[in-house]
């Protein structure tokens, strides 16, 4: 059903629609995607930083900046392809309108996904900049190197959110999504604590979530901790595979819901 669709001009048209709406609502968009993670960063940087002395050989601020960066990327990307996208799908019927044009479903959904990842990147970069100014980023080069990984992670979170939207029958569905998907990634995947502090079955679950794999690469890069290259490849491969699988599943499910 899905013919291979690269990011073409139809996908670009969808992306630009999102960007235009975002620009018009820039202040409220900024509040959720930039101010919100920064508040978290300050709370944890000051609050926990005062209590926790060193963690994994780093100051707590150095430890938590990569975690917050990944978290803000995850939250913004996931929100965009779930709550926001579901509104366009179900309430506003924007997708119906777009599908009556030459834009194909896979192009529409790719545009949504890439846009959501764009918002995720925007959040991540603002956390990075503030963290860097604050002195929480030991390796500037590593931080820049981590950005493509964060971009892949954003695509992955966006695609997973889209897969949830593909199965949503009402708004209530998303409370499950946030409780059982977003919150565990916030808590168990190494954002504030190392994963190995948790019991082993929790660790095992944590490694199923894309957030763990993101942080496992981003934190060593940004802090200068050693990064096992072989493991890095595995983390990236996992993110990539999950992105593709979630995206294809979304196209398939949403196609059946809309066209059958």
């Amino acid at each position: 059903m899905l013919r291979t669709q690269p990011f073409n001009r139809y996908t670009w048209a969808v992306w630009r629609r999102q960007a235009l709406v975002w620009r018009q609502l820039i202040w409220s968009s900024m509040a959720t995607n930039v101010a919100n993670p920064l508040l978290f960063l300050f709370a944890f940087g000051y609050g926990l930083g005062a209590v926790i002395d060193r963690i994994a050989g780093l100051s707590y601020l150095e430890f938590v900046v990569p975690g917050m960066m990944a978290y803000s990327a995850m939250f913004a990307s996931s929100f965009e392809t779930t709550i926001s996208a579901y509104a366009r799908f179900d309430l506003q019927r924007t997708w119906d309108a777009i599908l009556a044009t030459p834009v194909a479903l896979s192009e529409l959904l790719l545009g949504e996904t890439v846009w959501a990842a764009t918002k995720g990147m925007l959040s991540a970069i603002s956390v990075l900049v503030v963290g860097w100014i604050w002195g929480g980023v030991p390796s500037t080069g590593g931080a820049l190197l981590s950005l493509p990984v964060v971009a892949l992670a954003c695509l992955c979170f966006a695609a997973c959110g889209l897969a949830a939207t593909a199965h949503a029958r009402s708004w209530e569905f998303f409370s499950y999504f946030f409780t059982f998907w977003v919150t565990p990634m916030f808590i168990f995947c190494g954002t504030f604590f190392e994963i190995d502090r948790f019991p082993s079955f929790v660790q095992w679950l944590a490694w199923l979530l894309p957030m763990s794999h993101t942080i496992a690469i981003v934190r060593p890069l940004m802090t200068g901790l050693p990064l096992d290259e072989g493991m890095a490849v595995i983390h990236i491969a996992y993110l990539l595979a999950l992105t593709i699988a979630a995206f294809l599943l979304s196209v398939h499910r949403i196609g059946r819901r809309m066209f059958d």
Partner: protein
Amino acid sequence: MPIISATNLQKRYGALEAVRGVSFEIESGACVGLLGPNGAGKTTTMRMLMGLTRLSGGELKLFGRPVDGVARERRARIGLVPQDDNLDPDLSVSQNLHIYGRYFCVPEAELSKRVPQLLAFMQLEERGDSRVMQLSGGMKRRLTIARSLIANPDLIILDEPTTGLDPQARVLIWRRLLDLKREGKTLLLTTHYMDEAQRLCDRIIIIDGGEILAEGAPTDLIDRFVKGHVFEVQKPIPDGLLVGPAEYEDIGDSILFYTATPSQFAGGLPAGATYIHRAANLEDVFLRLTGRSLREG
């Protein structure tokens, strides 16, 4: 070469057969009305033409080519006015047109020209900067029609373009549709207003229960099914009238007689009979073919 050539179109939703074997052709430049009661399958048929709903069976050719695999080319040449407005509430009126044009890859310079033209065409030029939410139902409908024209389509499919509008707005839309027809566009529309169909359409297709009941020019259908003239005779019906040659239909407290020879029929009516004589219209055809009972609810 017909622009649309549908053969035995079928659509099933689970056990429900929404469209069961509909075949028709639409010539380039024609204005065709698809009429039918609620739930007849009009919207479903249109969605199949647009590729917004998969066919459960049948064959469809658009612009002379089988539709399989040419979804993009087909949609590029068709403008759709859906039954329920789905304008983009996050955008202003003129942005709705501009952004929609981008989905068709209309060049930006071209869009900057066309958007004000279309706003003027639909008498919305004052409202370009309004939000969609601030528009009345009639303005939304006009904007949806303007939007369907953004990529200069050859075929325009309009699903109840005038439902819920006041007479002024309907007249404006009729005028615009006739303008489009003069430009050589092909129109396929549905409506529940029979006067509208009679006024606009060269050809009518009446469907019910997912099947075509009749097809032809409005005057043709009137001659064929209701003979051109109607006598509505109040009960009690004078003796002998029911065994006469005129076809009739009992509608409760009166009976409708259909006749092609009104003076002869009137002459046969006894003095003192209470009746109304009028020219038959498309509504008579519609009610005669689809029955008088309520469909839904």
